[in-house]
């Protein structure tokens, strides 16, 4: 009998016009998975990479060994940060649709990742984020107006017009510059963590990629180096099910969870309900403690759903059912924390609505202020000659002559808008 090869093409569970189908998603009940000690051996805790750590149950109660027992006031603050993240995104999305910024990416549905993990890390821990981690920047004190100015490429832009909107950085807040190339920050985070260990410091590094980017070589470099040197790093895979139009199966998620990617290298993996802020916080704190005490890296897969489009240039109705997000079995992170706080008697619909209004006003005030530093059409404008700055610490002569040449050409055409056109 002749052998016959077979090419398997992964197929998304549901495409436009079909009924959303998340039967492929392996779920565990809240509280079902044991919480091991932070010095547990990888081979003894493999269940964490295939199960799903959850704290909040269907009735919005927190339960089980991973329940972090956070102060309810602190949870209220977490809710506020997630709501701010979403309010900011909604506003910036509208602003892009009005043509007032060139591009935007929202984190809708994934806010618990940045806020929950941000809360579990220490201020001295270094973050190497992906492009949907804006919540981290907010949580670590970057002002909304500064984030807006970055998106506007105006005179107060931290990136001086050099980067696409949302590619923030903050040295004082210990969050790295966002590249825009996928996955490159992963081995850099490992190198940063190695340096921390070389210097004998207890700061750790954390990095984020999406499910799609786990296919990049950088992901595998990072895991290998992290395992080899037992670097104090948390490597996060935000599995939001979609890499633009390709579902997570195309990145290799059909047979084994992304959290299990590190097992072959001896890196413990934890698969966590990414829409459950309590669980996200709890597993991150566990991994951070482990790393800080010399226990090496942890790979965390945050199971969530990209409720919005990939970016303002994307149209998800072309590749997934319109009601896909609503059918996602892990719900929405803000709604779930809100319901938990209400169930605990520590929050109410009225307070929630009032906070929403307050945050909208905060964002509106920031937008008003941001525009004072310039917009895409109204001055003041950045001096385009600044593009020649910071290419080198010690720049070659040719850059100076090119700067002068550019200035000669643009000062002679008389449009007076500083080269904005």
């Amino acid at each position, binding site marked *: 009998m002749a052998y016959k090869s077979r090419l398997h093409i992964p197929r998304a569970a549901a495409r436009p016009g079909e009924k959303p189908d998340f039967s492929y998603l392996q779920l565990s009940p809240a509280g079902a998975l044991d919480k091991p000690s932070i010095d547990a051996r990888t081979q003894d805790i493999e269940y964490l990479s295939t199960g799903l750590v959850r704290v909040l149950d269907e009735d919005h109660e927190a339960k089980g060994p991973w329940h972090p027992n956070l102060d309810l006031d602190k949870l209220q603050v977490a809710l506020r940060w997630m709501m701010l993240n979403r309010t900011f995104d909604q506003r910036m999305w509208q602003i892009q649709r009005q043509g007032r910024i060139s591009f935007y990416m929202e984190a809708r549905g994934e806010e618990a990742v940045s806020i929950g993990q941000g809360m579990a890390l220490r201020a001295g821990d*270094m973050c*190497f984020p992906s492009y949907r981690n804006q919540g981290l920047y907010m949580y670590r004190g970057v002002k909304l107006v500064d984030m807006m100015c970055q998106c506007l490429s105006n005179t107060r832009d*931290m*990136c*001086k017009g*050099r*980067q696409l909107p949302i*590619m923030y*950085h*903050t*040295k004082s807040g210990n969050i*790295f*510059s966002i*590249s825009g*190339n996928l996955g*490159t920050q*992963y*081995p*850099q*985070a*490992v*190198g*940063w*963590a*190695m*340096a*921390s260990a*070389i*210097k004998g410091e207890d700061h750790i*590094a954390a990095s984020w990629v999406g499910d799609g980017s786990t296919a990049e*070589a*950088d992901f*595998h*470099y*990072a895991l*290998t*180096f992290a395992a*080899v*040197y037992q670097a104090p790093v948390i490597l996060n895979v935000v599995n939001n099910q979609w890499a633009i139009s390709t579902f997570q199966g195309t990145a290799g998620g059909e047979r084994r969870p992304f959290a299990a990617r590190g097992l072959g290298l001896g890196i413990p993996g934890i698969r966590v309900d990414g829409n459950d802020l309590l669980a996200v916080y709890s597993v991150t704190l566990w991994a951070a403690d482990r790393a800080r005490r010399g226990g090496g890296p942890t790979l965390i897969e945050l199971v969530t759903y990209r409720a919005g489009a990939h970016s303002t240039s994307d149209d998800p109705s072309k590749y997934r059912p319109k009601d896909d997000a609503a059918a996602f079995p892990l719900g929405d992170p803000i709604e779930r924390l809100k319901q938990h706080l209400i169930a605990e008697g520590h929050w109410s619909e009225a307070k929630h609505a009032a906070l929403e209004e307050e945050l909208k006003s905060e964002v509106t005030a920031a937008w008003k202020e941001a525009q004072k530093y310039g917009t895409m059409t109204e001055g003041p404008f950045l001096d385009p000659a600044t593009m020649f*700055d*910071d*290419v*080198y*610490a*010690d720049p*070659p*002569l*040719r850059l100076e002559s090119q700067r002068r040449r550019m200035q000669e050409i643009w000062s002679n055409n008389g449009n007076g808008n500083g080269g904005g056109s």
Partner: protein
Amino acid sequence: MAQMNMIEAIRSAHDVVMDRDPNVVVIGEDVGFFGGVFRCTDGLQRKYGQHRVIDAPIAEGGIIGAAIGMGVNGLRPVAEIQFADYIYPGFDQIASELARLRHRSCGEFFSPVTIRTPCGGGIRGGQTHSQSPEAIFTHVSGIKVVMPSNPYDAKGLLIASIESDDPIIFFEPKRIYNGPFDGDPEKPAVPWSSHPKGEVPEGYYTVPIGEAEIVAAGDEITVVTYGTLVHVAQAAAIALGVDAEVIDVRSMSPLDVKTIATSVNKTGRCLIAHEATRFGGYGAELAATIQKECFYHLEAPIGRVAGWDTPYPHAFEWQYFPGKKRMMAGIRRVLEAE
């Protein structure tokens, strides 16, 4: 002063800088316990420990990515890529990350990584151990590219590179690790002890990045070259009895335009020589720069001698390599042109 070959000079540069600055770390394949396949880091791990001289997995993209992160965290990494031919998996980390980090973060973040890598042919290395990819890197804004041609420059340039806050690709022409090579493979090898640039100070000194050197003064023609071909060019000119001015570029980016232009304006004739393939090569940048700076002094078209535009061959190395014969023919061609 001491007699050193290029390997010893490179090792000495590491030693001097690592002794002065505890933040200097070395990472690469086989660099630690073994001391590198070319022995350039031999003894460093024994002296400075496994935390500062780190044997890496075979993953060039990982080595450079990790080095970037180390640099961001205050270390001063020297990453060795075992052969320049292996550097391509790390290219994204170099071109998209290392080179642009300072610019994209407006100076808030930078990573002062030096990437050392042996390059060039003449060692029977075939297509995966002989390449000269310098032009791929000179094309990237934000990094600097240097290539020494002797032990003295190797040590001084490497110290300057490691101490620089700019990322640097440091190419080491491996054919001349052990001695200068005049491009004639039939002749017996010559040690560096026979060459004045084999005299190397044992302590600290630097050779500034961005300065070319006139290695032979002359009036009839300027030969602009770097790496192994510096020695080939000198030998070819002597064999022809031509009074050639030979310039060792040393630093491809930034480029010392002034030294080169002054020379060509004087001689009126110019030959550019490199081992790398010709089309789109670094010689094209040199030729464009020289014609702009020296147009009214040129008495002949600028000539180029370079690797043929084929992959680097194994069996036909000496037909491919721009050795003495090809260099002599190139000089003659430029001198005879009207």
